[in-house]
């Protein structure tokens, strides 16, 4: 086929294409609904949820939600060549660095023994299993939606999709989780969200190629 003939065929195809964000909106709401309903069915909220949300423990929900907003915006920017994502990337880096600092500060105060004490609870396994489980439908829909974009770095876009999905799952899970010590929450949530991020990056390398 000659290139001019191809151009003629391309130009005749005038059906509009939906923007990535719009294409994703409804399926993503469905996935959030699915995670929310399974959470209500299999996990349920902690008995003192309102008291917890009125205390420092609200950070367990709020910080992941901030991560969701930043990572989702960055992932969307990455799927659109030429769109600037630098500001979101540095804000994201700052939030993660702050969380790491908070962890080091808590570790410095209570020492390794404190960390061991905080983590030797069956809640650790529950947390590490639950967050990825709740994140799965979110990550699936996010990657599907982003694959209609044009990612120049599929692994990074996939990682951001994983970070957003994992953080949202963590925010949901925090309603159930009744462990509020910094030395439990920061490493456990961090590893759980990190594993979803890694999964997003590995899957993204394949499904976000074009």
């Amino acid at each position, binding site marked *: *086929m000659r290139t*001019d003939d191809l*151009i003629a065929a391309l130009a005749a195809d005038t059906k509009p294409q939906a923007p990535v964000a719009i294409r994703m909106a409804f399926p993503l709401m469905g996935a959030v609904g699915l995670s929310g309903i399974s959470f209500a069915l299999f996990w349920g909220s902690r008995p003192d949820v309102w008291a917890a949300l009125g205390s420092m423990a609200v950070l367990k929900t709020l910080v992941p939600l901030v991560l969701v907003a930043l990572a989702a915006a960055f992932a969307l920017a990455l799927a659109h*060549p*030429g769109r600037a994502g630098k500001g979101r990337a540095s804000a994201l880096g700052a939030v993660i660095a702050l969380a790491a600092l908070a962890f080091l500060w808590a570790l410095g105060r209570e020492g390794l023994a404190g960390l061991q004490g905080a983590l030797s609870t069956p809640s650790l396994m529950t947390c590490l299993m639950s967050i990825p489980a709740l994140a799965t439908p979110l990550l699936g829909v996010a990657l599907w939606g982003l694959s209609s974009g044009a990612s120049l770095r599929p692994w990074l876009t996939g990682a951001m999709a994983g970070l957003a999905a994992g953080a949202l799952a963590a925010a949901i899970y925090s309603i159930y989780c009744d462990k509020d010590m910094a030395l439990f929450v920061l490493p456990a949530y961090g590893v759980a969200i990190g594993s979803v991020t890694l999964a997003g990056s590995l899957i993204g390398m394949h499904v976000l190629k074009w």
Partner: protein
Amino acid sequence: MRAANRGDAVAYRRLLTAITPVLRKVVRARGAALGPESCEDVLQDVLLAIHSKRHTWNEDAPLRPWLYAIARHKVIDAFRVRGRRVELSIDEFAEGLAAEAGSDPTEGRDMEKVLNQLEPRAAEIVRGFGLHGETTAETAARLDMSEGAVRVALHRALKSIVKLRERMIE
């Protein structure tokens, strides 16, 4: 491009025709060793990518950086794969070059392979626009379809072409 995204076929065709010589120069400069035909295949890949990703351009942003990013991504990808493929069949490639010296330099080969994998009617529609210089209405009349059906069939055919080409590259 803005007009094209709103469905103005004439403006879109003008845009594609205008950028093609520039893209061809870029592709040939990078891939001189591959021969003009493979370069044309890469160029057609780039055009297909521009078409299938056109909704990722933000209308308020300048078009050039977007176009450049898409083209660069596709060109790098295409040469990475073709470089590997050429190494495997270097004898055949040299013979092919000599035999096809007289053919049209803007003719791509990969596209024919892909079109042959489509349903005959879909391939016929894709070919119709360039070969016969038809409009959607004329294709519809010739194939005894409604105009809307031709539009949908063309849209689907181009989507499957993009998918098949991606599979060829992998």
